[in-house]
């Protein structure tokens, strides 16, 4: 009898992989192990809509009924603690042992901890639904929320907190918000939107000290300025969850290192989603680790195909979005691959920056605008990037030229 497929981490990636195994017709045992008490669920709403609603609910990737119908065994609230590669088995925190034919590690990432003394119970991080519920309770009119780190999660949370009437201060040590991966021109628009909504953004000054007495957090910046808050949410990036893989002796390189087929240094163990680093074909095999929802989805599905022997290489172009107030940002590709940019203005103040490599190849596109104004052109740009196209800069910059026509070229 088949030992079956075991997936560690019941998040976006693990959940999608389990469903994909069944869609592909695999009929052996599929076991999904997660240390959270919930069904696999979507994280992006946790800093967006779910935060604004009165009683946040989980947006599940698959219901209990679907998991049962597809005979996917979901073991929740249990951690995988060790992998015995020789025996092809995983040991769980409840003492049980799960044998596997192929193993998928979809352990995700975890918030980077602020390496400072003085943090207490009013200093929190946002990753899980449980974190979100705890934070939600503090987002009330007049409450003071300090957000440490001007990245996406912190800024989205700032927008949600403002909608609920809280007073919000964002503290960013760098000279501007969204330093990583977002062009300054676009970060500026987001910055201004927050200021217009009453968020206080403090950039360019590190934190000298934090004092949390359990009721209030006092943050002192390097220049002496003091910020008092009822809650401090720390959003300074994420780290891949690699402990289990490292202890099993798998190669780690800014995440669990996998090849283009998402296979780790053990041919029967795959890794996908936020926890892995992989070679990005579209940039000549540059090794990256992404923290992006669609990537987790796509890699979960790809890992499932390859666990069944498809031998298919990852070929997708990275894609990311963020929503703040009425604005949506979308980025296809990695903008740091670009050497020059071309701007295309769209209706309603929306615009897209196309990032071109030295040789004229389109390597990324970053867009911002109200609603979904940039979506269609970003999607077309993504396809052009995937085709390694070298579109004429004038065509990219001109609203009169349809991007779809460039794709056909």
């Amino acid at each position: 009898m088949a030992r079956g497929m075991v997936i560690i981490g019941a998040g976006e990636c693990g959940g999608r992989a389990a469903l994909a195994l069944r869609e592909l017709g695999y009929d052996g045992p599929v076991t999904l192990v997660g240390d959270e008490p919930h069904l696999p669920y979507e994280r992006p709403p946790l800093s967006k809509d779910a935060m604004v609603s009165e009683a946040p609910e989980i947006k599940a990737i698959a219901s209990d009924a679907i998991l049962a119908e597809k005979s996917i065994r979901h073991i929740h609230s249990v951690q995988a603690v060790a992998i015995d590669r020789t025996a092809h088995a995983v040991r769980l925190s409840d003492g049980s042992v799960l044998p596997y034919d192929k193993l998928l590690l979809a352990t995700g990432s975890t918030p980077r901890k602020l390496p400072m003394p003085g943090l207490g119970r009013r200093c929190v991080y946002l990753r899980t639904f449980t974190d979100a519920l705890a934070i939600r309770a503090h987002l009330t009119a007049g409450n003071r929320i300090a957000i440490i780190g001007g990245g996406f999660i912190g800024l989205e949370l700032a927008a949600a907190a403002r909608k609920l009437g809280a007073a919000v201060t964002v503290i960013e040590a760098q000279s501007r918000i969204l330093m990583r991966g977002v062009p300054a021109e676009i970060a500026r628009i987001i910055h201004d939107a927050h200021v217009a909504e009453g968020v206080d953004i403090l950039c360019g000054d590190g934190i000298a000290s934090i004092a949390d007495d359990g009721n209030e957090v006092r943050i002192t910046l390097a220049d002496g300025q003091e910020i008092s808050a009822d809650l401090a949410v720390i959003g300074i990036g994420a780290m891949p969850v690699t402990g289990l893989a490292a202890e099993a002796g798998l190669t780690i390189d800014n995440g669990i290192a996998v090849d283009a087929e998402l296979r780790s240094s053990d041919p029967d163990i795959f890794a996908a989603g936020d926890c892995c680093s992989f070679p990005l074909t579209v940039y000549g095999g540059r090794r990256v680790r992404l923290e992006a929802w669609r990537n987790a989805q796509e890699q979960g599905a790809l890992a499932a195909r390859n666990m069944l022997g498809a031998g298919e290489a990852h070929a997708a172009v990275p894609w990311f979005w963020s929503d703040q107030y009425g604005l949506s940002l979308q980025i296809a590709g990695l903008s740091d691959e670009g050497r020059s940019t071309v701007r295309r203005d769209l209706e309603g103040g929306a615009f897209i920056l196309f990032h071109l490599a030295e040789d004229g190849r389109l390597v990324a596109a970053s867009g911002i605008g109200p609603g979904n104004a940039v979506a269609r052109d970003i999607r077309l740009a993504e396809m052009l990037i995937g085709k390694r196209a070298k579109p004429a800069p004038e065509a990219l910059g001109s609203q009169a030229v349809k991007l779809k026509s460039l794709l056909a070229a």
Partner: protein
Amino acid sequence: MSDWVEACATGDIDEEDVMRFDHGGRTFAIYRSPDDEFFATDGLCTHEKVHLADGLVMDDIIECPKHNGRFNYKTGDARGAPVCVNLKTYPVKVDAGKVLIRIG
């Protein structure tokens, strides 16, 4: 009830494109396929309530602008994560240069 409602003129939509149509407090999406046929579906994605008319049409697929969920707009079938609930479709006919849809 089988009311045919005029949604737009045929020339209002390019081939392989989509347009939003609001009627009676509801919102629809009208498509023109690459082979010049017209189709209609509910206007909002079944994942989150987002207007599909801002999305991209490729062959017989409409891709949601928000998270790239896909539907076959001819049948309404959901075609992959994150969408899993099918889209409702509506009968369409073309009459004297007008696109009419039957809203049941």
